């Protein structure tokens, strides 16, 4: 993507004012999107973004600049801007001797740019028709197809040079149903880090029907309860629970600033012995997967909690350097315009041994959550919320009445100890975008069916 000699020259320029470390991150991103709404293919959109971000670390200070101008002059100017805050004694030269060819990822068998636009549009029309045919209550449907290809090159003054070619494909249907109780919504979405072969195994008509069925079911939903009770979370969608309950709290930047309830707890029992939690950037094809992270290090599988014991936090380059330990390959950024920081990849709870149907039968009264929305956490207190977008009451060990949307609230460290059954039906959930300090990155979540002995449901029914 860039001449290695130019890369070396830019890193040298970046270190001239005395920085300890310099890095260049080059990105060439393309995306396309097609949207059908209100019965009509409303638009096709194509986007491209290319540029470089340069950072210089000097002691505890990081200087950063980015540019869309990849010429020698443009990169040199950015390197000078990034190095302006470095206050080291003397400059040094970058060590590029270990620089090798970029590693390639690209599991995609069918690149999005090789697929005719008409083929993509046809998927939208089919999903729309299937959703509308699901019932007369369906009043509106929107369908989105999106793909992206992101090629990156990372080189730094420690001699690292690596690259990746990341392809993603995503499809989502949202349906609106109308009835005596007003309007209701249903959603189905799926996304993988692969090319158009995604649709070999993903049925767009089935997605349309699922979204419609959720909206229609909720027309008969009653208000969610208000108060604390047992909650059973269906396989797949509930990974966001761990993402919020402890994932963010295990990010070393927050731990290092003591802005996490999990600070200083490595080696301690922090969860029920049934909990083994993994963050794994190597899961081929999954939404949060990559070959190398945005600091150029090969993706890794990291066990965060093992049998309830906190084994390790997640690290990016800066935090690992401060603590004199290896990175865990969790340094990610939204684009070349952003500084990397500690982020999750694919975060999941490993399988337990219980029969998922038995878990419901053994729950006399509670809530069954079949689909979750997003969530949010205050890492300082550990309090987190997550939304339920498809949920039912459990009465006498059976799933009964559908419930309207609401948030659930819990405290991460408490909830982890209250997980009392874990099923054997592990599945990954729908694609997510995790937001932190204004940056969004793609993440995956997964879990088997599980039960939390007590969670607070934020509904209105007494």
């Amino acid at each position, binding site marked *: 993507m860039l001449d290695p000699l130019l890369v070396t020259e830019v890193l040298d320029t970046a270190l001239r004012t005395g920085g300890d470390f310099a890095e260049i991150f080059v990105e060439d991103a393309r995306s396309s999107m097609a949207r059908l709404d209100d019965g009509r293919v409303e638009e096709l959109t194509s986007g491209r*973004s290319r540029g470089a971000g340069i950072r210089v670390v000097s002691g505890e200070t990081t*200087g950063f600049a980015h540019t869309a101008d990849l010429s020698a002059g443009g990169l040199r100017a950015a390197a000078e801007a990034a190095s302006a805050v470095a206050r080291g004694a003397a400059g040094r030269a970058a060590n590029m001797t270990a620089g090798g060819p970029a590693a390639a990822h690209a599991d995609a068998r069918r690149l999005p740019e090789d697929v005719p636009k008409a083929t993509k549009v046809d998927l939208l029309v089919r999903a729309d028709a299937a959703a509308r045919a699901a019932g007369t209550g369906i009043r509106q449907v929107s369908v989105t197809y999106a793909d992206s290809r992101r090629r990156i090159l990372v080189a730094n003054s420690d001699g690292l040079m690596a690259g990746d070619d990341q392809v993603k494909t995503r499809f989502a249907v949202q349906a609106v149903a109308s009835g005596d109780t007003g309007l*209701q919504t249903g959603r189905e979405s799926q996304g993988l880090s692969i090319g158009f072969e995604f649709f070999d195994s993903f049925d767009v008509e089935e997605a349309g029907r699922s979204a419609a069925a959720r909206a229609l079911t909720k027309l008969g939903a009653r208000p969610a309860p208000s108060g*604390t009770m047992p909650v059973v979370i269906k396989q797949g969608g509930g990974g966001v629970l761990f993402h919020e309950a402890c994932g963010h709290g295990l990010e070393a930047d927050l731990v290092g600033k003591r802005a996490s309830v999990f600070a200083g707890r490595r080696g301690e029992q922090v969860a029920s012995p049934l909990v083994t939690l993994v963050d794994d950037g190597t899961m081929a094809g999954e939404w949060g997967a990559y070959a190398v992270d945005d600091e150029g290090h090969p993706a890794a599988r990291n066990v965060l909690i093992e049998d309830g014991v906190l084994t390790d936090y997640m690290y990016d380059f800066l935090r690992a350097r401060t603590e004199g330990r290896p990175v865990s390959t969790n340094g990610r950024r939204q684009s070349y315009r952003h500084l990397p920081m500690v982020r999750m990849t694919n975060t999941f709870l490993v399988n337990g041994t219980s029969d998922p149907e038995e878990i419901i039968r053994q729950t006399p009264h509670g809530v069954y959550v079949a689909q979750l929305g997003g969530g949010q956490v205050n890492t*300082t207190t550990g309090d987190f919320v997550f939304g339920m977008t498809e949920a039912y009451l459990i009465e006498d060990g059976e799933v009964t009445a559908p419930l309207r949307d609401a948030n659930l609230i819990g405290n991460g460290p408490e909830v982890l100890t209250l997980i009392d059954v874990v099923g054997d039906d592990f599945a990954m959930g729908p694609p997510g975008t995790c937001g932190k300090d204004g940056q969004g990155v793609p993440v995956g979540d997964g879990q088997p069916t599980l039960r939390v002995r007590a969670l607070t449901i934020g509904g209105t029914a007494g």
Partner: protein
Amino acid sequence: MSDLDDLAALVVSWARPGEEVEAYVSRSRTTNVRAYNGEVESFSSAEPAGTGIRVVVDGRQGFAWAGTLDVDVLRETLAEARDNAAFGQPDEHAGLARPDGIAVPELDLVRAELLTTPTAAKVDMALELERATKARDRRVTGVRVATYSDAYGETAVATTTGITATSTAGLCFLSVSPLVEDRGDTQMGSGVSAGRALSELDPDRAATDGVERAVRLLGATKPASRRVTVVLDPEVTADLLQILGSTLSGEAVLKGRSLFAGREGSAVASDAVTLVSDPTDAGAFDSGHVDGEGLARRRVPLIESGALRQFLYDTTSGRRAGRPSTASAARGYSSTPTVGAPALTLAPGTRRQDELISGITDGVYVQEVSGLHSGVNPVSGDFSVGATGLAIRDGALAEPFREATVASTLQRMLLDIVEVGADHEWLPGGAAGVTLVVRDVSLSGT
């Protein structure tokens, strides 16, 4: 500035006969300084820019964007947008904005001072913010982030239909998140200050607010579930207004995605509620000269004494509804316009926050909410958010609470608004903050 105008005009000049073409070009200059432990943790500066090109042919719309102002790339981008248009399905209402004779508001949104302030002064401001925050209270154990940031942005819009418009604005912000600890309990607060130049920023106030908001939550416990009157902090009210704004989008109404469809002229809120979108108010931080399609921004009354007056429109949704655009098109260069709700503001009442609280026997003061995007459904109106704050007992603020939710529906909450406070203030998020009293809300805890 003129170079952006010229570039937009150049792209439009490439249009072929029978094509409508729109170029939206923007460029900004940004600085971000984060202070930590008395040092600069990071310093970033950049001049990002980009262009979005929309083509409409025979009612079919195509769009393409590129994160650059490079003319050769923009030629390819136009070709891509043109190609994309061939795959859209015709919509008789699709099309670009046309000049509507409404004058661009005279707004001074740029202070020369912002552009001439040396970098060192910005760095000092971030360091001072962290220092002031740590000095505020002995229980402050650290600061998660203390940030100074600014952005000076220019945009130009040109179309084959006769639009040529430009807009410029400069803003700067301080934001701090102090960590406080007492008897083993840790809490984090947040304080902000926004302005159009450094001299308009108030680091002391951001520090004081941030620390106070953290300290008063120390020792918070989970409250008992019950129905109560809630008093919303001005920042929470601003969050609520943003959600409400999305339900007042004419596009959402026309597509059957708004709980307010067919309610124009009816009472949808208590008579204490008068809501306006007014991006022509220079005090609002998302005010501007023109909207995303280049039409002059204007004041749009939405709810008047509880009665729904009208919805917000961009050009296409307005045409579909048989109404003029309210110049509410929101966008960046990487997306087509959608209907936005800029500068939302409630008409303030007459009483201060403490006066509002003094009349409440059992209630809660909600300082902060979470999960706005996971627990609020703007189509059905279901509303459920995580909440932290203070109990209200016998007319005064009492002990803090956490790990609770407040829930109702948007429809009911609007009707249950008892009073709007007098403490109106524009907030960095765009909407104006004001204390709001809402009765009969479900509080879920133990």
